[in-house]
């Protein structure tokens, strides 16, 4: 199953791979964005439950695959960073090819 069942520690965001090209996409609260800065951050259980509903709906409507909630840290500038290295790499790109993945498109490293 591609649905994450266990909710990670808050705050969380919802990310997935786009069905068509596999690219990482972030749920903004209304739609999917290619950019992490647009991600809707859920800081409490109600907001996280809303993200889970969005996830179930998105998977059912076949827009994305491998969707899941990811726990993030928010710094004083409001920047979102996944807490775990796996999702950090997932949201940026391969650490050994900075010319590939999102880091190449957005300049974020």
């Amino acid at each position, binding site marked *: *199953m*591609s649905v994450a069942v266990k909710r990670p520690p808050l705050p969380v965001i919802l990310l997935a*791979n786009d*069905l*068509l*090209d*596999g*690219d*990482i996409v972030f749920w903004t609260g209304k739609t999917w964005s290619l950019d992490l800065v647009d991600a809707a951050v859920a800081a409490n259980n109600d907001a996280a439950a809303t993200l889970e509903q969005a996830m179930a709906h998105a*998977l059912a*409507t*076949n827009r994305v*695959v*491998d969707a899941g909630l990811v726990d993030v840290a928010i710094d004083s500038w409001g920047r979102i960073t996944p*807490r*775990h*290295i*796996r999702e950090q*790499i*997932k949201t940026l*790109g*391969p*650490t*050994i*090819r900075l010319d*590939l*993945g999102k880091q190449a498109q957005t300049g974020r490293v």
Partner: protein
Amino acid sequence: MYRYDEFDARFVRERVAQFRDQVARRLDGSITEDEFKPLRLKNGLYLQLHAYMLRIAIPYGTLSSRQMRQLALIGDRFDKGYGHFTTRQNLQFNWPKLKDVPEILDLLADVEMHAIQTSGNCIRNVTADHFAGVAADELEDPRPVAELIRQWSTAHPEFSYLPRKFKVAVSGAAEDRAVILAHDIGIRIVRHEQTGEIGYRIIVGGGMGRTPMIGKVVRAFLPKADLLAYLEAIMRVYNAEGRRDNKYKARVKILVHETGAEEFTRRVEEEFAALDGPSINADPAELARIAAYFAAPDYADLEPFSAPLDRQKKANPEFAAFVESNSFAHRQPGYTALTVSLKPIGGIPGDATGDQMRALADIAEQWSFSELRVTHQQNIVLPNIRLDDLFDVWKALRTADLATANVGLITDIIACPGLDYCALATARSIPIAQSISNRFADPVRQKLIGELGIKISGCINACGHHHMGHIGILGLEKSGQESYQITLGGDATDKAAIGERLGPGLGADEVPDAIETIVGVYLGNREASEPFINTYRRIGIAPFRAAFAKVEETSDAAH
């Protein structure tokens, strides 16, 4: 090289058409991901961290120039201009778009290639010695039998839903270069001691992963004619009795281990005796038809010694070093099998750009009868280079940044894609390979250290063969951090051994120093020009552990 017959060609085209339809239905929402996933995996299409990944089968690692050029074209047109050669002699593209995959598969079919059975619980791509057909120490070319097994196992209805994936490797040489002792089935072409007849030694139950095992000989000598029936007997016993309750215990190695090699062998022999051999075994005429495709190319009649090569080596030490480390004894006088390293210093093991693939295709076309091989060490072999042409080949390789002279040396590192790409990985592998490669970049020092294989996996599944590295490195996650476990004394040859743990896990930045320490103990203890693995076997792990513990103490004190 083997050429598809009409059945092969039609089968592959039909599969592409089916997959095109499946993708269309996925994209229009007619089928769900849960329904689609097994279909895409049957065609080698995975979903990794950043994107889809397409794994393309390269049967027994053999490629023509035409096929290599097509892979370059696919990489340039549909991916990011490069491909990754794997430890199973395959090629992976890391960024294909789902909508493009049917077109990619059509382009592969144009050159008699596909991605079928590169995933899933089936018999995977059959691997073989990368010097097959050219090695001086070879009894018989393993490729005809590997091709026979490929044909027998492709879409075999009885073995499409095995308890777990199943890997077969074949070697026909004195030295095992195909890691046959760490495969589900390893086949060794042998000569019968009394009769002189050529047949097969069948080894079952080797493997790496979370439970590494060395394979057990279940048949010391199997007559050639009985091969497919015997393989079918093994597969039947495994298919019926292999565990399906726990995927971590589902490989045949666990069945052999839990049943005992003797009892497992008895069951296989019993099944074999009950099978209708003639209805399963290949017609000798069919095997002969296949073997004809692998006939030796039209070699020139040459002297074993090349005077021009000798002069060029004397005049150019860099070239001489390249020839020394990258060429391999050929059975045909005046030729060599040349390994092209895909391990430039500080580079990504196994990666080649589209331009490099085209350069390799061109070089093979001009100087190696249009043939190339992919090695499980993630390098490329030009199997038929005239000694007289080596200098020109080297210059052409240098132009394409492909002339690294490090084959078998400490910077010729195997590494899986690790957490930089792989959804299963627990830690990164490639940056560890790069930092070790940079640390030991000096060619003089590399040569001084001599033959030393470092193998790195980014998770317990062991795609980077870490268990069988002279130095193995396993990347794990420890409290949310990447941690690297070092093992020593692994060996992937006929003296197969699983490495022993050196000590506690290390942080990524501590790994190069740890390798320095290990190399230091080796150089301090080696006798004459003894390779690392021999010194290790002679002195054991204790001196390495002692030195490692001392470094750890210092490191702890500093923190």
